[in-house]
């Protein structure tokens, strides 16, 4: 198991109280796996990925244990996490390059990053260049400023930088959402190749776009309103979902070949509950067509097929 967390709870503190953004979620991530993490805005998927690497106020650690490669990961301790950041856990944020200092050239940026970890740029230069040619980037990019790169080039460069130290876990947060379809495909495929070449051990790929996950993920986890909904093999989640929310979510995705005039799709009525004071029991209850009295209490996680977990009373036999 590369990453393993249990009953993880991370809240946001606000003036009006705690927002329960990530409430009691557990996961075992296998070695060499790309796990797709999907859900709508506010479901807790970004909170989950951020809390694994950069848990800072207003985020608040409430409880749960995290293990990385068999050792405890102290996500609650901002300073101790410095030993893990970048070396063991790395992240590609959505707007990575915009966060980079625009006045520093790429190679300076990388050597500063390595120096902060007590490492020498020249030792890694050869490997860096090898990986750059792998993703089709010219070495001259190293002498450029971030602003001189196009969107696709930036995303590739950031991917190379983020995985240079062969981290155990790579967090990719909506990295393809802002890209055009053709660049999106290239970046997603590159991520798979990085995994295949063992530049990263395993990946958590956060996105709202289920169809991208169908293309690259080994397993998919669906979250709803801060809670775990369903986890299973990609094929299972897309073609044989068990949780009503997953069913409706996948069913609401238009794709080439589906037309309103022939097969109209339907969305999900209503809105997710506010997480400041979420209702007791199943949080999807209000919008769920199958809800019954049992749903007033918290649904357990059931495993009816091997490896296919679903948090719904309907699945409890």
């Amino acid at each position, binding site marked *: 198991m590369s990453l393993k967390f249990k009953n993880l709870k991370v809240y946001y503190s606000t003036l009006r109280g705690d927002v329960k953004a990530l409430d009691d979620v557990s996961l075992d991530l296998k070695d060499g796996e790309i796990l797709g993490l999907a859900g*709508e*805005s506010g479901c807790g998927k970004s909170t989950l990925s951020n809390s694994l690497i950069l848990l800072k106020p207003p985020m608040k650690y409430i409880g749960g244990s995290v293990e990385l490669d068999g050792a405890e990961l102290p996500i609650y301790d901002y300073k101790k996490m410095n030993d893990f950041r970048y070396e063991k856990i790395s992240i590609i944020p959505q707007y990575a390059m915009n966060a980079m200092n625009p006045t520093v050239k790429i190679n300076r940026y990388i050597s500063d990053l390595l120096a902060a970890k007590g490492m020498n740029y020249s030792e890694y230069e050869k490997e860096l260049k090898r990986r750059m040619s792998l993703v089709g980037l010219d070495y001259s990019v190293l002498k450029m400023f971030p602003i001189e790169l196009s969107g696709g080039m930036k995303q590739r460069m950031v991917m190379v930088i983020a995985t240079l130290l062969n981290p155990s876990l790579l967090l990719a947060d909506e990295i393809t959402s802002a890209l*055009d*379809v*053709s660049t*999106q*495909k290239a970046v*997603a*495929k590159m991520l798979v190749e990085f995994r295949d070449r063992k530049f990263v051990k395993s990946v958590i790929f956060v996105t*709202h*776009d*289920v*169809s*991208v996950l*169908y*293309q690259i993920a080994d397993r998919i986890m669906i979250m709803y309103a801060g809670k775990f909904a369903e986890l299973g093999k990609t094929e299972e989640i*897309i073609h044989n979902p068990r949780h009503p929310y997953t069913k*409706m*979510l*996948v069913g*609401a*995705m*238009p*794709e*080439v*070949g*589906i*037309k*309103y*005039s022939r097969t*109209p*799709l*339907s*969305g*999900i009525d209503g*809105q997710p509950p506010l997480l400041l004071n979420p209702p007791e029991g199943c949080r999807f209850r209000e919008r769920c067509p199958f809800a019954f009295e049992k749903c007033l209490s918290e649904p357990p996680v059931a495993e009816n097929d091997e490896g296919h977990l679903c948090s719904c009373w309907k699945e409890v036999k």
Partner: protein
Amino acid sequence: MLNVEGLSKIYRKGSFGKTKFNAVDNATFEIGNGEIISLIGESGSGKTTIGKMILKLSSISSGKIEFDGKDVSLLKGSEVKEYYRHVQGVFQDPFSSFNPIFKADRVFKMVKEEFFKDISASEWNGKLNSSLKKVGLNPNEVFGKFPHQLSGGQLQRLLIARALMLDVKLLVADEIISMLDASTRIDVLNLLAKLRENGLSVLFVTHDLSLGYYISDKSIILYKGVIVEMGKTEKVFQNPVHPYTRSLLEAVPRLDSKWDEIDYKYSHETREDIYIPGTTCGGFLLKEIENGHFAAVKK
């Protein structure tokens, strides 16, 4: 109803406009009554610029837009208002479409102020309720609230309802659901399709091929400001002629097949006379490849 002929937009960049940039290049198409047309393109394709020019939010460099036979750029004073009575728009970002310091229902007051000054309160309320009903909103849930207190889906519906207050014939919908959540975006899409059944025409601007396919009768594929392919949606999607259209169809993530399986599906040979913007030199024209299916070819 709306005719676009040889439409171009040239931006000048740099200090005192030294360099030129063709955002839209010689676009010609028409929108008929009760038609939904998708304008599909990636960022920088000029799709939004075309929508803005139709809404008179951006000036035209050359070519013309005609609405019911009248040149839109020549409209003056009250004629402009009359144009907006029939041609309306909804934009991409629902939160930026509302002035954050006012309540969301102010968009209706603005319409009343400009178009229905002398209408009686009861008549206005009747109109308001009927258009809110058409978009599936409950007035109690959305009135008296600030934009940030409503969801993106509710805000976009409010804006569609606002357009329906007028005698709108053409709605320019610029990426209106790209910022909405998956579970609500399909409802807004279905709403547009239903409104079409009552005679509304829609120019549906999008970067998402699957959305375009789902809703539209005709599709226009835009690349670097040039219409590279256009025609009945099924024809464009099932028999793409232009290599750019094919590359888009290969790249769009689907739920029924994986990328590797699609790669060869569209690898037909490309016609020799095809025009590729930015690569092919000289001019281009739209040629009818088969009945109702056009592609850009060399002049």
